[in-house]
Structures are given as structure tokens and as C-alpha cells.
């Protein structure tokens, strides 16, 4: 296999990249100065060497524990449970949450063969079992599989944590009620809060 085909094959394994895009990226790299390709190769090589899972929350990190778990200013008694490490970035960008996280590493999906044993739930139970956590916020995606995962996690934690909450669902900020679908409006109404 030629070097061009080899790189295109590897790139086309990435999500959202088909054969044509992989070839386009390959030819783009060939048009660049060789140093740029080397920098990319070094960055890719260093990724698996330097990045690993935090031993506390399973976030992706270069240190252990991760910056969030190691931050003394964060409230360790409030744990936000997310499906993937990338979800942490989304919540951190909002700047509202000052607790810590726990990454499940996916969501329950019988159709894809993903069961409880594939998720990082046992570690979460170990983490909250000593009784130092006062609230767990379950922030799995608001999809049917995300809801089932939230229900499963809630059941596992129920005897260990005084308060288990679920992130709210409803009309997005900046959205228009007129254009919201019926399911979203129904969710927003059922999760309404007193003013």
C-alpha cells in the first residue's frame, strides 16, 4: 500500500471522515511544508502517551488526578455524572457548576451491546459510598437511552446519597415557544418551577 493510501485509510477510520475527505486531507498535508506534517505526527504520537483517564472521575487528563478533581476550590460533595469526558467541557463553559464530575464512558444501549458492566458505575458507587457526597446531579443526555442510564445510575446510588437530581429539560434559552415541538413543551410544563 502506498504512503498516500495508508494515511487516507487511517484518516477515513475517524468519525465523519469518508474516503474522499481522507484523500483531500492527505493531499492537503502533502502540499504543506514537511515540518507541519511532522508536528501533526508528533501531536498524534504524544496523545496516547500523555493523555489518560483520571483515577477519580475518569475525565481525560494529563495529570492524575485531573485539574478539576485536584482543585481545592471545587465542592467535592456535589458530583455531576456525564456520559462522556467531552460533556465536561460543555458544562464548564457555562461557568455555573462548582462541583466535581464523574464520567460514565457511554450510555446503556442494549441494541449496541452496551450494558452496565461497560459503564463506569461501580467506581461511582465506591466514590459516594463513604457518605461524603450530598448531591449527585445526573447529566446524561436527554435521549431515551440517556434517560434509561440516568434511571439505572439513580437506582445504584439511591441508598448512598441524600439527594439525586436530574438536569432539567425544556425550552432552550433564546428559543421561541411557537417553534418548539410538542414533546419539548410537555417536558417544560411538567418540569415547571414555582416563581
Amino acid at each position, binding site marked *: 500500500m502506498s504512503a498516500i493510501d495508508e494515511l487516507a485509510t487511517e484518516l477515513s477510520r475517524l*468519525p*465523519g471522515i469518508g474516503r474522499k475527505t481522507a484523500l483531500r486531507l492527505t493531499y492537503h498535508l502533502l502540499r504543506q511544508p514537511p515540518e507541519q506534517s511532522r508536528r501533526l505526527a508528533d501531536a498524534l504520537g504524544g496523545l496516547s502517551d500523555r493523555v489518560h483517564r483520571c483515577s477519580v472521575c475518569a475525565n481525560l487528563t494529563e495529570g492524575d488526578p485531573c485539574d478539576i478533581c485536584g482543585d481545592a476550590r471545587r465542592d467535592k460533595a456535589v458530583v455531576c455524572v456525564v456520559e462522556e469526558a467531552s460533556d465536561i467541557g460543555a458544562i464548564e463553559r457555562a461557568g455555573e457548576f462548582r462541583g466535581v464530575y464523574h464520567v460514565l464512558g457511554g450510555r*446503556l*444501549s*442494549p*441494541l*449496541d*451491546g452496551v*450494558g*452496565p458492566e461497560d459503564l463506569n458505575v461501580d467506581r461511582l458507587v465506591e466514590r459516594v459510598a463513604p457518605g461524603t457526597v450530598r448531591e449527585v446531579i445526573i447529566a446524561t443526555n*436527554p*435521549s*431515551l*437511552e*440517556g*434517560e*434509561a442510564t440516568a*434511571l*439505572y445510575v439513580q*437506582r*445504584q446510588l439511591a441508598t448512598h446519597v441524600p439527594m439525586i437530581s436530574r438536569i432539567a*429539560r425544556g425550552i*432552550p434559552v433564546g*428559543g421561541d415557544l411557537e417553534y*418548539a*415541538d*410538542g*414533546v*419539548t413543551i410537555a*417536558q417544560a410544563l411538567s418540569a415547571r418551577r414555582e416563581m
Partner: protein
Amino acid sequence: MPLVETDAIVLHVFDYSETSRILRLATRDAGLQSVLARGARRSKSRFGSALDLFAEGAAQLQLKDGRDLQTLASFDVTRSRSELGEDMGRFVGASALAELVLRFSGADDVSVALFEALADAMDNLAAAQHAVAMEATLSGAWRLVAEMGFAPSIDSCASCHALIDAAGDLPFSHTAGGVLCERCARLYPGGRRLPLDARRAIADWSQGRRLADCDERAAKAHQRLLREFLQEHLADGRPLRAFDAWEQGALVAR
């Protein structure tokens, strides 16, 4: 590129690229379809928030011959079936039903009757209390098997077709495809014996009727029987992952 409007049920969902999803749909008029829903993961998606697993709605598909992946132009949800995610028994049961259709109905073999059987099965399961979720799944599964043309013979011998009217246990052979008269049973060694109420249950379920009473032990026995039947008549050697999760019951128990 022809635009086809049809009712559809979402059987499987995959995230694709940054904002899109690939859906596997059972449709009333266009068989099984894999479609790309561009932008479906955005919070202000034109598909709305309810385009999710097991949802049913009016779909507009842009179909092009020779393509494996078609384009979803719109999907107006009529039933979101979010209740299926609110109970583990319902969730794993619905996944097993979806897997049956995905794996064992051919791309062009989703008849109107099979589509309606699937819609009924999902509705029944969505409305089922936790205690009867397994019975609702069994009922839906046997009806789907029947609509696919594999209903077991219950009232007549699967081998010689003689009518059987027996109150006691009868031999049941997966290979033969149903119950056997005592004479033919000698030709099919190694089957099970099914009591009358188990035979009645399968007959009722295959016709879309529900049982008023089915205890856990009987339901477990029916799960095993259904698995053996599927392995004999439909299985292609690949594991049935959702069916396994449903049969093992680990999600429901914990």
C-alpha cells in the same frame, strides 16, 4: 430524487459527525430504511427533540436508487414513547423488539401488517406497568414473528398437519415449527413438551392478544422457548445483543 412520505418508527440511532444522526427506520410504505438526519443533534434542530429511539411519526424521505443511506427531510413525531425509557423492563424489552425487526425482516419485507404489529407492540409496552413488561414484550415478539411468516403451529401437527385437540402436554419441535402429534414426535427427537396454557399463550400472543396473568417463572420459560425458536428459524449466527440483555434480566433486576 423522489420524496416519499410514510409513517415510520425509529429502531436504532447512531450519532454521526458533529451534529447529525443516522437512524434505522421501519416504515409503513418503504420497508427498512437507513437515513441521515442532518443537524438532528442540535438543540434547535428542525426535527425537534423527540426524534429519538422508538419514536413514531410522519417521515419524509428523499430516496435515491442504489444508495444505502437515504436522507431524512422531515419527521413529525406523533408518538414519542418516552415512557419506554422510564422503566428498565420496558427499555430493554423495546430494544429486543426493535432488534427482532432490524435483524429478521428484510429491507423490503416490512409489510403494513408488520409495521402495525410493531407499533402496537411498542404502544403496549410503553403503557405496561413494570410487573407486566416482560409479558408485553413476549406478546409483541411472538406477534412480530407471526407477521414475518414464522408463527409456530399450535393447533395442528407441524409435521402431518393433523388437528390436535389435547388438554395435556404436547411435544413441541423447533425444527418442525410447532407442536407434534405423538406419532410424528418420534421423528423429531429432543424437543420440549408444552402444557396447554403455554400453547394458548403463544397462540394468543401471535394474534396480538395479551394475557391477563403470566407469572415470572412462566415468562422466563417463554423467553427460553422464544430464543430457541428464533435460533432455529431466523438466526444468522450473529449474537442478539438486545435479546440477550432482555433474557438475562440484569438491567431489570438491578
